[in-house]
């Protein structure tokens, strides 16, 4: 199909889709004027029932925890897919990172290296901090994990791939990521045995406003942090690994 025919076909079908979507949004309440009964109910009961002040956290890891488990496995499967594609692509060949005095490393002084290492440690600690405060601030395992993973980029920018390859171990990250995903599912299985319902909150809730509050919410949050943090770090490593060259490419 040529470009012109394709565009015409798109415009015709887009007009139809747009008509349906516009009809749909015309049936919504005007912006900012309506709250669903479900949201209103959760806002009323979440703090009393689950002892967490961040209601979005309570929804994520408890009231709609089963949905989040599904999303977790989409994440897990995607990362596994990247791992498989990249290992199949150049598997079996020996790969060499750019040498330390290669073009990418020129201009990196000892001060820059030291700063980048410090920054990586700070970013990793920041990620853990954001994840830890899930029940009382807008933090959580997803956000904290994404921050944690970006520590990899700090090391890469400041010290180069060769240094990164020595510090961050792919096999360790891969294992931890899988354990994080498994922990989430196993918490569900354990609660099913303890209380008769999958993912039912059945740990002591703690005091509302304290960091370890919310029972299973806190445990699931930790599992999600490990999975997302290690998963993002692994993804970045896998992509940066593609900058390595085989012996023939190096020549």
């Amino acid at each position: 199909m040529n470009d012109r025919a394709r565009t015409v076909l798109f415009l015709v079908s887009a007009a139809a889709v747009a008509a349906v979507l516009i009809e749909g949004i015309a049936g919504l309440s005007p912006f900012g004027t309506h709250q669903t009964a479900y949201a209103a109910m959760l806002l009323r009961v979440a703090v009393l029932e689950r002892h967490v002040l961040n209601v979005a956290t309570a929804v994520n890891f408890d009231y709609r925890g089963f949905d989040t488990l599904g999303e977790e496995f989409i994440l897990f499967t995607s990362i596994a897919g990247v791992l498989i594609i990249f290992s199949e692509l150049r598997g079996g060949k020996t790969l060499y990172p750019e040498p330390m005095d290669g073009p990418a490393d020129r201009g990196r002084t000892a001060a820059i290296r030291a700063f980048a290492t410090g920054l990586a440690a700070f970013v990793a600690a920041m990620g853990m901090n954001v994840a830890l405060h899930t029940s009382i601030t807008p933090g959580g395992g997803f956000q904290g994990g994404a921050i944690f993973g970006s520590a990899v980029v700090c090391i890469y920018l400041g010290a180069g791939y060769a240094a990164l390859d020595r510090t961050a171990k792919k096999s360790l990250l891969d294992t931890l990521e899988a354990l994080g995903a498994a922990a989430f599912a196993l918490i569900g299985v354990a609660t099913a045995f303890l209380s008769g319902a999958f993912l039912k909150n059945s740990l002591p809730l703690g005091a509302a406003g304290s960091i370890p509050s919310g029972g299973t919410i806190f445990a699931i949050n930790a599992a999600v942090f490990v999975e997302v943090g290690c998963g993002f770090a692994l993804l970045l490593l896998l992509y940066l690994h593609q900058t390595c060259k085989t012996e023939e490419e190096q020549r």
Partner: protein
Amino acid sequence: MSGALLYLPYAVAVWLFLAGAYGLVRSRHLVHSVLCLAVVQSSTYVLLLSIGFLAKAGAPIFNPPQVPPGSRSVDPVVQALTLTDIVVGATVTSLLLAMTIQIHRRKGTVDPHHLRLTRG
């Protein structure tokens, strides 16, 4: 705010969806296609968050005694959905980009017009 303006955020979501789809149809580069898909996906964030918005309300995070539990807040359900959506979207994008790299190594092109149906 009045009249049509009260529906503007929803209209933005529709616009993002259609603009992203247009980009997908006209794409001549797979990386561009992946980014267009990300634009399509971002329409879901805008739609979810604008449905959850409530005028003169705070974040659904209480901080007693200044913000006691039960204060007027925006919808926490759509926020939780958007949160996981963004993180999952990022990893799915990375999978698609990895596929793009694989296609480039195998076929030497990333222009969808030059890719024929792959034979098994």
